[in-house]
């Protein structure tokens, strides 16, 4: 291990070591004051974020190609870290309110982030797998963190069984890829394909297995069925974090693996990716309409958005468009993160200790009761719909640009049509908030308000002036293809 290796994984090291530190510190923090642990965790994440931003370096390989530290990774790391910090902020009062305030929460969340960061910078399938597991295992626990609430436990169990099931596919896929390409390093695979030393069929089957597993993580149809149940049952801050960061991590791996390692197979996986994307957009959006529980609604919305981001994959299969498509996906992930975290923040604010306050009807009258919060929620809903001037619109715009550039007009049309459908259920939230009478029970907690406010501001301001973020995403997209 050289110093450059070390610097490449520095943010990761920071997060991991602060997680360990947290475990120790937590022992000395008395019950009822676990918030301190949360603050420390947030500090750790912030530090990692600072390092990531400062580093912002040339793409480099570390650990003999195991790790690709580049703009792509850095961009996504920022998304993870933001999601993590928000996850902590949302949990800060929530945990106490729900009576599940335990120091492990923060440590586990940081372990999840370590896993995600590994996935984002993976240069080798084995690292992808380990990252995935490091991400998943603590997340299973987090989903069940509200035990003994049955919903939470059920959610954890479902997530666990299906998660383990899906990751087994990945392991098997990696094995087959290893057999086919004689290596699991991305570059090795590419070289092998170029040199023709590779068993094509074997590689394809391996790729299919990996696609299933990653498709599961990003909640692509038909591997999405866990999503609504798990999102509903898990504690809301966890869901918030999960819906954003896990999806981002899944896409990080998906884009990396398929664009860096398997570009040679594009002819085969591109139609599959298109089909997945189309199915996901359709199913997610349509199923969301029938939901009356806000968490399930947002879960289906999250599925739908996975469909949009998935469009980037087939688009990127067209070599010329690839950097653009990847940037589009990255930006969309960020946009989705900002918006969705905010929306979940509002959900957290309305959820009461008994797990009530999650029905759409519980939002009636929010516009009159808490205009600020309702306005923020409206902004998030419009952003998720893709109405300008919000960041969600810019995200869709940027993504559709790549898709159209790749010539996938029908996919783009499907995308816009389904986003029209999505307007229906997003607007319903707004309708209920503003146009129905009711007296919702709403929390007003400092961190929560701040977070929601910041996210709303971000959604709006970056919708008007997305320039810097677009530039970042643009560079990150180009760097994924290495020097």
């Amino acid at each position, binding site marked *: 291990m050289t110093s450059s290796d070390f610097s490449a994984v520095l943010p990761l090291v920071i997060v991991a070591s602060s997680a360990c530190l947290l475990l120790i510190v937590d022992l000395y923090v008395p019950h009822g004051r676990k918030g301190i642990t949360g603050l420390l965790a947030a500090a750790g994440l912030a530090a990692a974020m600072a390092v990531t931003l400062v580093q912002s370096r040339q793409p480099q390989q570390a650990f003999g190609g195991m790790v690709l530290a580049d703009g792509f990774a850095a961009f996504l790391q920022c998304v993870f870290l933001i999601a993590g910090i928000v996850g902590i902020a949302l949990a800060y009062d929530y945990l106490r309110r729900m009576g599940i305030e335990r120091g492990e929460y923060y440590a586990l969340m940081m372990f999840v982030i370590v896993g995600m960061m590994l996935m984002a910078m993976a240069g080798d399938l084995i690292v992808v797998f380990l990252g995935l597991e490091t991400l998943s295992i603590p997340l*299973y626990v987090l989903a*069940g963190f509200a*035990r*003994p609430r049955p919903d939470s*436990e*059920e959610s954890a*169990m479902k997530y666990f069984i299906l998660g383990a099931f899906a990751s087994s596919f990945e392991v098997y896929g990696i094995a087959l890829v290893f*057999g086919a390409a004689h290596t699991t390093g991305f570059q090795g695979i590419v070289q092998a394909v170029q040199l023709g030393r590779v068993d094509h069929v074997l590689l394809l089957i391996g790729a299919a297995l990996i696609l299933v597993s990653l498709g599961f993580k990003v909640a692509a149809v038909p591997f999405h069925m866990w999503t609504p*149940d798990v999102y509903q049952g898990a504690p809301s801050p966890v869901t918030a974090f999960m819906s954003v960061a896990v999806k981002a991590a899944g896409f990080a791996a998906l884009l990396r693996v398929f664009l860096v390692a398997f570009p040679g197979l594009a002819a085969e996986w591109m139609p599959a990716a298109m089909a997945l994307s189309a199915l996901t957009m359709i199913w997610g959006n349509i199923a969301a309409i029938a939901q009356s529980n806000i968490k399930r609604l947002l879960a289906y919305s999250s599925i739908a958005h996975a469909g949009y981001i998935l469009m980037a994959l087939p688009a990127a299969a067209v070599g010329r468009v690839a950097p653009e498509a990847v940037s589009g996906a990255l930006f969309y992930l960020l946009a989705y993160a900002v918006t969705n975290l905010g929306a979940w923040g509002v959900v957290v604010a309305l959820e009461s200790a008994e797990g009530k306050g999650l029905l759409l009807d519980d939002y009636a009258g929010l516009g009159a009761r808490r205009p600020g919060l309702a306005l923020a929620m409206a902004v998030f809903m419009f952003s998720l719909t893709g109405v300008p001037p919000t960041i969600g619109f810019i995200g869709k715009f940027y993504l559709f640009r790549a898709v159209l550039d790749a010539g996938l007009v029908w996919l783009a049309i499907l995308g816009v049509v389904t986003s029209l459908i999505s307007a229906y259920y997003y607007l319903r939230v707004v309708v209920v908030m503003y146009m129905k009478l009711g007296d919702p029970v709403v929390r007003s907690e400092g961190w929560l308000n701040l977070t929601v406010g910041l996210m709303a501001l971000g959604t709006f301001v970056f919708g008007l002036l997305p320039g810097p973020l677009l530039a970042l995403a643009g560079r990150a997209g180009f760097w994924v293809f290495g020097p």
Partner: protein
Amino acid sequence: MNVPTNYVVALSAVLFTIGVVGVLIRRNAILAFMSVELMLNAANLAFIAYARALQDMSGQVFVFFVIAVAAAEVAVGLALIVAIFKTKHSIDVDELSSLKG
């Protein structure tokens, strides 16, 4: 042992599939876990076979990692089962269906 690698891998595929089916048809959560273990085990077999055929130790190292991951999964999974058993007094996965729709 002098057996074509394909045979070994095919065996792993069969075991893998049995694991897959096991997850899907057994309602006992513990059995589902065990089936997952079977799947992982099948993958390991494939790794080892390829490692042997390619003369590449990497495959064996992967197996090492997979076993470690499996251990971690089992630890968490069993903890989860115990926790759920405490509240529901059942480990039938089909009874975990209050979240749906």
